[in-house]
């Protein structure tokens, strides 16, 4: 009985694998990065919705929901910018304040390795130097709230 189940499972797997192979022969997923696309798309579309269509953030959240499922965003209203992050990528779209007829454009799209950054900071002497100086400054400042805690 066990053998039969194993044989049937193997047959099922091979049939499924064959079907998958047929599909992949026709179309291969393209060479792009899903996380990257989600971050870039959200930055651009949220920026255009907010600053070109001049819609509310609530409305813009509904029309960007496909990319927002994955990516997170932050709006900088004073500079008319939208910053997004997702899966180790970050993007930025800016509204062209000087030439509003050109709307929003993606100005930054880069790989952002948070862990790598933290490790880089820890390994950097200057980081500790700055941290120590900041600590001492606060410790010596009686007005600094946090300095009271330090003492």
């Amino acid at each position: 009985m066990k053998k039969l189940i194993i044989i049937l499972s193997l047959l099922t797997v091979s049939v499924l694998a064959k079907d998958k192979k047929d599909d992949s022969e026709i179309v291969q997923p393209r060479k792009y990065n899903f996380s990257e696309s989600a971050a870039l798309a959200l930055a651009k579309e949220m920026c255009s919705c907010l600053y070109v269509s001049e819609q509310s953030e609530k409305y813009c959240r509904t029309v960007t929901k496909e990319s927002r499922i994955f990516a997170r965003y932050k709006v900088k209203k004073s500079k008319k910018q939208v910053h997004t992050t997702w899966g180790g990528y970050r993007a930025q779209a800016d509204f062209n304040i000087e030439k509003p007829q050109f709307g929003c454009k993606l100005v930054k799209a880069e790989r952002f390795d948070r862990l790598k950054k933290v490790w880089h900071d820890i390994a950097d002497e200057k980081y500790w130097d700055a941290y120590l100086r900041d600590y001492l400054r606060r410790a010596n400042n009686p007005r600094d709230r946090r300095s009271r805690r330090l003492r």
Partner: protein
Amino acid sequence: MTPRYTLRHMLYSDAMRGILFIITFIVNQLVYAQLLPVNKPWPTKGWQTKDLKAAGFNTEKFNKFLDYVWEDEGNFKSDQIVIIKDGYLVYEGYSNGYHKDKKHMLWSLTKSMTSIIMGTALQKGIIDKNDPAHKYFPTLNRDKAEDIKLHHVLNMSSGFDFYEEHPIHDIFSDSVSVYYSRHSYKNVALGVSKLPMKHNPGTQFKYGTHEPMLAMGILKKAINNQEVYDSYPWDALFNKLGMKNVTFEQDLSGTFMGGAYAHSTARDYAKLGYLLLNKGKWEGEEILTEEYVDFAIKKVAPALYIPKTEKKQQRLNVETYGAYFWLNGVLPMNENGRPYPAAPEELVQAMGFRGQTMGLIPSKNLIIVRLGSDGVYKKIKRNKMYELLLASMEE
């Protein structure tokens, strides 16, 4: 006695009658060719309005159309709707915070706008339909790609290996990665020019955002002056038509995103339709040649007549296409008839993501622009929209 020639004699003389006949004939021809703006409302400073009934609509049946397009059961969201009949605005409606001057994302309606902008450049002789694309993008100087001509780009038959709507899932689509990739977002047209080739140019129609992106890149290279290029769409088109509410976004290289990123109002976008209904003429000025208007909205892209060679690619040889406009003709290999059976074969459409639509029916001198925020799966049914609209025009 010498005969006295009075004005009456002169008018009745054969010679004078001949001259009057010739003058009348020339004026008629000019009016017919729409070079003289006789009794035609031109909306450059804004659309003139007309009552629905006076425009020949049955208001009761028209309400059924309105009930459908503005339904609020959460199936789709209409934001702006404008209907133009015989050059008069007969209906306009707005929702979701939009009003007549508030711009809406056009998505792929931008492609049709790009077609018209390219048409103006052809009319001015800035570019030629037979220009090889590698003349502007040396990256295309390679196998198969070296044969791409501008008319292939305008007919979406360049032959690039590109999937606008991926059969496995939309998220894998090249239409997403063509803008949203670190490698191409700075200069999208250049990124397109580096795409691998799959077919010989002119042999396979393939709807895609990449082609109008490349087209606007070609125009930029042809103009070869950033300042002139930046103002070109406004100088050559928008300002002439009085389109005041238009945003046309650029990538970081300063190239217009001809495939999807323009914004406008329904009122302004309808002016593009009116330009086409008037065979490219606007208040006596030729903006597009009649030949280009035919190329864009009448002549089916030649590659569509070649049987499809790829399986599972959506939108392949199922709907007819001109130059960045959808047509409603029946292809010999398409047994299902017209793509939009409720509308006549002459229907011309600009269509975009989230249900953006402009429909033109030349024989009825009718334009409908519908801008919306439909979901990916819950979209307005365009065929039903035309069915109800046309029913309201029946006598």
